[in-house]
């Protein structure tokens, strides 16, 4: 077969349904990335408009452009939008989705349909959150939503319910997206791309995704607690019943601080992509930078209490968290100097993308230096909750996270669209946004020091703040003009830009080896990789052409992409990727509807729609690629189950952690008038459940070896026991809720929540088991084997969790 025929064949294989409908059912990571991009741009515009309205209100003292209530909603939604509906989906969703497979030489993400699902869920949660404006009840207690202000007693409308349910909902999308990125990076790297040859952008996204997996559960649990307290009268946050208002803050910031790094890490990744290209050399200190990216994410988990320095924590706690916070500085400075030395060791070409990175470095250093000041506890206690903080985190979040995004938009624009942007306009837009950003956020340092507190809808004349505020407002509009200029540049260049060609900047990574815009199948031949900058390795590229001509690793037997081993990226198997599917959007639709019914307290209807979601899942998995079982290294499905279990275990860890934390705050735990929970029945039931790990193990093993009948018998045995366990437990649970009334005490609230969460996980497991009892009965396919192995892994984890829950239950007897 000639090369042209091969490529034509690939085109046919990977082509999706044409027209608008194709966008709804697409599983192509590039199209999903573009959907993410435009959706987040819309949210960015909304968040920006909210900011401009606020700045208009604050331009002068004592203005009444908006009412206090409106201001509070604008300020809350500005924060929520920019963080949850702009930066995270823009970095992991748009950039990560589009670029990671291209950079590692894959033809799609590891789980293409899950990828589509995370987009549609994200869109659903965004619509859900923004529909709050339609009823005039947008979230209004600030993006960190402190209790008791956010409790029903002080905020009776639906405002906070939109917030909590919306964040739980969008958390599902982010978790799914992060899981997908992790497994893609672990399993789908081109043969030869061992860790030390993976682009730093992918390291950054890996670090951000891992952080998401471990940080989001804390936010989810926090919001679940809040909703249980608001809607069902549980007690988690009120002192009178043994709760603690600081619990909200702890959980929120255990999520919230890693979140900061989730936001900036992809930006670091973009910087480490742009700098080598325009400096025309590889990154200085490559392994150190990769390490620094991962280390930032790791340290970020141990510093949450520095957001709570003014709450009256003990001195020693303050000192410990101050020291921990200071440690974050070092990985950041390593990266800054590595970027600068790379620029200086090369022959830099300051085109628009690199100019944005220059601006990014300036702002990141400014924000970082004020950040170090906050690690000095007394200074933090003086200036926290003032505009000094607002200045600090906007330099980080806008200056350090969004500037590289803007640079990245220009940098990859030719790749995505096949056309060049207008360089002259781009430079103008840089100077406008740079000046705008400086003018908007720098004076905030000064007003902060002059005593202006944050989240005020107005301020008095005579405190020396007026001029600075006016400058900030003017700066805000200049910034908006700069951003509009970028939008104009994009829209114009989309139509009339010069053709860009394959590689207009001579970039180093794999996405520049393929045509612009990339074909549906990404790579005509799976590329050869022998360094972190494969596009600069001419012999390897010639080798690719040779292999294409000979048909080696062209993989045109179907929707195929190679999977490799995690460590060395040796070719392990050829994956048959699923084609486009309508199920993700259907699933997202029913879940969105369910969220609205939860909001309005129609629980039965919500449950009905959630069960429709289960049916949609069944429909999803009924269509499967028809491949024969092969035995290889750990499959991507297994890794997916591992990551999923990691995030679920963190969720339970958070609930158990809450139990322990509140126990430490209370003299009587459980409260004195409550009978002790039973011992015998739960112990026996748990023992029976834990024992099902044995048949699950047998089933998983037998299936892997192709022994269908054994696998089926084993899973059926497990299923029967699991179902019996669940029925018995649910029956007992109804009784438990009456005896240990969660409306009476914080203890009962955590206890019932813990049991309930466990039962829900068992329910999910029972459904999985039931599915495989039905599916394996007739035939064993590769898809089913991997699914069964994942399920077995899930069940082992659920059994461990159930045992832990039992220990918590028994601990009251100590």
């Amino acid at each position, binding site marked *: 077969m000639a090369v042209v025929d091969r490529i034509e064949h690939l085109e046919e294989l990977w082509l999706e349904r044409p027209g608008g409908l194709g966008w709804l059912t697409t599983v192509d990571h590039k199209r999903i990335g573009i959907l993410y991009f435009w959706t987040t741009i819309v949210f960015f515009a909304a968040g920006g408009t909210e900011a401009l309205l606020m700045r208009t209100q604050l331009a002068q003292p004592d203005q009444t452009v908006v009412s206090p209530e409106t201001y509070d909603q604008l300020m809350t939604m500005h924060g929520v939008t920019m963080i949850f509906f702009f930066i995270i989906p823009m970095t992991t969703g748009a950039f990560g989705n589009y670029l990671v497979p291209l950079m590692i030489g894959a033809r799609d993400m590891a789980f293409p349909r899950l990828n589509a699902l995370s987009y549609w869920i994200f869109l659903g949660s965004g619509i859900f959150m923004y529909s709050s404006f339609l009823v005039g009840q947008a979230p209004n207690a600030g993006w960190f939503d402190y209790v008791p202000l956010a409790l029903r007693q002080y905020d009776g409308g639906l405002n906070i319910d939109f917030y909590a349910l919306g964040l739980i909902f969008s958390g599902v999308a982010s978790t799914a997206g992060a899981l997908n990125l992790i497994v893609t990076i672990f399993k789908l790297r081109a043969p030869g791309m061992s860790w030390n040859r993976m682009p730093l952008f992918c390291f950054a996204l890996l670090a951000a995704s891992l952080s998401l997996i471990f940080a989001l559960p804390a936010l989810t649990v926090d919001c679940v607690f809040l909703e249980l307290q608001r809607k069902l009268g549980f007690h988690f946050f009120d002192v009178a019943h043994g709760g603690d*208002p600081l619990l909200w803050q702890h959980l929120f910031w255990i999520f919230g601080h890693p979140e900061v790094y989730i936001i900036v890490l992809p930006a670091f990744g973009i910087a480490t992509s742009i700098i080598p290209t325009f400096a025309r050399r590889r990154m200085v200190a490559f392994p150190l930078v990769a390490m620094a990216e991962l280390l930032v994410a790791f340290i970020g988990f141990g510093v949450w209490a520095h957001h709570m320095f003014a*709450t009256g924590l003990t001195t020693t706690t303050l000192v410990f968290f101050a020291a921990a916070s200071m440690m974050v500085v070092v990985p950041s400075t390593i990266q800054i100097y590595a970027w600068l030395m790379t620029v200086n060791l090369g022959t830099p070409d300051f085109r628009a993308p690199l100019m944005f990175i220059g601006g990014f470095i300036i702002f990141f250093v400014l924000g970082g230096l004020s950040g*170090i*000041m906050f690690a000095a506890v*007394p200074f933090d206690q003086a200036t926290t*909750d003032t505009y000094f903080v607002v200045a600090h985190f906007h330099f980080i979040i806008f200056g350090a996270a969004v500037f590289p995004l803007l640079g990245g938009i220009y940098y990859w624009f030719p790749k995505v669209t096949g056309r060049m942007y207008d360089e002259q306009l781009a430079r103008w837009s840089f100077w406008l946004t740079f000046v705008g950003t400086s003018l908007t956020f720098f004076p905030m340092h000064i007003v902060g020091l002059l005593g202006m507190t944050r989240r005020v809808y107005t301020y008095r004349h005579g405190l020396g703040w007026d001029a600075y505020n006016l400058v900030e407002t003017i700066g805000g509009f200049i910034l908006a003009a700069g951003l509009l200029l970028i939008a104009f540049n994009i829209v114009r260049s989309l139509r009339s830009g010069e053709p860009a060609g394959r590689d207009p900047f001579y970039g180093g990574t794999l996405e520049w080896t393929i045509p612009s815009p990339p074909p549906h199948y990404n790579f005509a031949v799976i590329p050869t990789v022998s360094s972190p900058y494969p596009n600069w390795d001419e012999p390897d590229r010639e080798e690719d052409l040779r292999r294409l001509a000979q048909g080696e690793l062209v993989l045109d037997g179907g929707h195929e992409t190679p999977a490799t081993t995690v460590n060395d990226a040796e070719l392990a198997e050829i994956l048959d990727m699923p084609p486009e599917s309508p199920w993700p959007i259907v699933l997202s639709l029913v879940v969105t509807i369910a969220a609205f019914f939860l909001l309005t307290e129609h629980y039965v209807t919500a449950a009905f729609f959630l069960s429709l979601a289960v049916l949609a899942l069944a429909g999803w998995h009924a269509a499967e690629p028809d491949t024969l079982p092969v035995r290889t290294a750990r499959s991507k499905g297994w890794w997916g189950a591992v990551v999923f279990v990691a995030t679920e275990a963190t969720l339970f860890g958070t609930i158990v952690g809450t139990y322990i934390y509140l126990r430490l705050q209370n003299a009587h735990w459980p409260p004195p008038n409550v009978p002790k929970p039973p011992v015998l029945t739960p112990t026996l039931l748990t023992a029976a459940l834990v024992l099902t790990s044995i048949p699950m193990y047998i089933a998983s093993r037998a299936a892997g070896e192709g022994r269908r009948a054994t696998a089926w018998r084993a899973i059926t045995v497990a299923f029967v026991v699991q179902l019996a366990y669940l029925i018995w437990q649910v029956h007992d649970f109804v009784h438990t809720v009456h005896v240990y009334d969660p409306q009476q005490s914080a203890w009962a609230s955590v206890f019932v929540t813990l049991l309930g969460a466990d039962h829900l996980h068992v329910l999910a497991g029972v459904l999985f088991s039931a599915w495989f009892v039905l599916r394996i009965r007739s035939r064993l396919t590769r898809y089913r084997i991997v699914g069964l192995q994942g399920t077995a892994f899930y069940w082992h984890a659920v059994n461990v969790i159930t045992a832990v829950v039992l220990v918590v239950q028994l601990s009251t007897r100590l």
Partner: protein
Amino acid sequence: MTRATLLVPPLVLALAGCGGNQNTLNPAGHPERSITQLFWVMFGVAIVGFGLIMFLLFLGWVRREQPNLPGGRGERTAVQIVLGFGVALPIVLLIALFIWSDFFVMRSTAAPAKGSTALTIKVIGHQWWWEVRYGNSTAVTANEIHIPVGTRVGVVLTTVDVIHSFWVPELNRKVDTIPGTENRLLLIADHPGVYRGQCAEFCGLQHANMAVEVIAEPKPQFDAWLAHNARPAARGNTLFAQNCSGCHEIRGTPARADVGPDLTHFASRRTIAAVTLPNTPQNLREWLRDPQHVKPGNRMPNLELGNADWTALQRYVESLR
């Protein structure tokens, strides 16, 4: 570096001089003074660090047209710079900062131990005003804290509703009021004056208008003020009893609710509605008749009274000296 250090003194003057009486850089007591000092030193070091990085960035910018500039080769040196400036130097500086700020400055701003101060004041956060009670005295006031000059004053902070944060920038750091917890703070003023403070933790609709004034005055004046404020009001008033006693207390009369501030000596206060307006007859009139306009969403309802009643009520309130 020299240029940077030259820039600092005028900046100090500019920042310390401008602004109202809520300026962190204009300290009036030793706790805040140590914080301000900490800030200026950090600021100086930050300028040097920023300058260094900007120099490297500038060098890169120059190199775009002069690729033959020296220092453009040598990965080894570059990695050494990364390790030296990116690892070693920050670690040294951070350890120094850590020890100085978190041991020495922290000691200066530390909360006073129970019973270690001559005067203890209870400050209670309400949505959206501050209740102020004096230990060993029946004096109760609101949004206005009188303290004797040069005396260590312990403040005990609590809240009746949501989390607030008590902060008087020129005197000390801030501390949150957390339900179910008593937090403590030290106040000390070196010279007489009025120091403005403001709630720093978002607490709802009128968070912006929840200010407080600390008035430091010589000891004799303070003692007289305290004695006067400990006394009940001279007389009650029927209009007040009918319309206002559901929320306010006037000691010595049947009005004894705790939703709004204690008004026993209202007329002697400098401001109305948590330092929202100066306490003038005109402002008081506006506030009484239309509190929802002055402070939208606050807990004081607009009442329907006849003109004569309004005048009488205002006259009574103005008599509460």
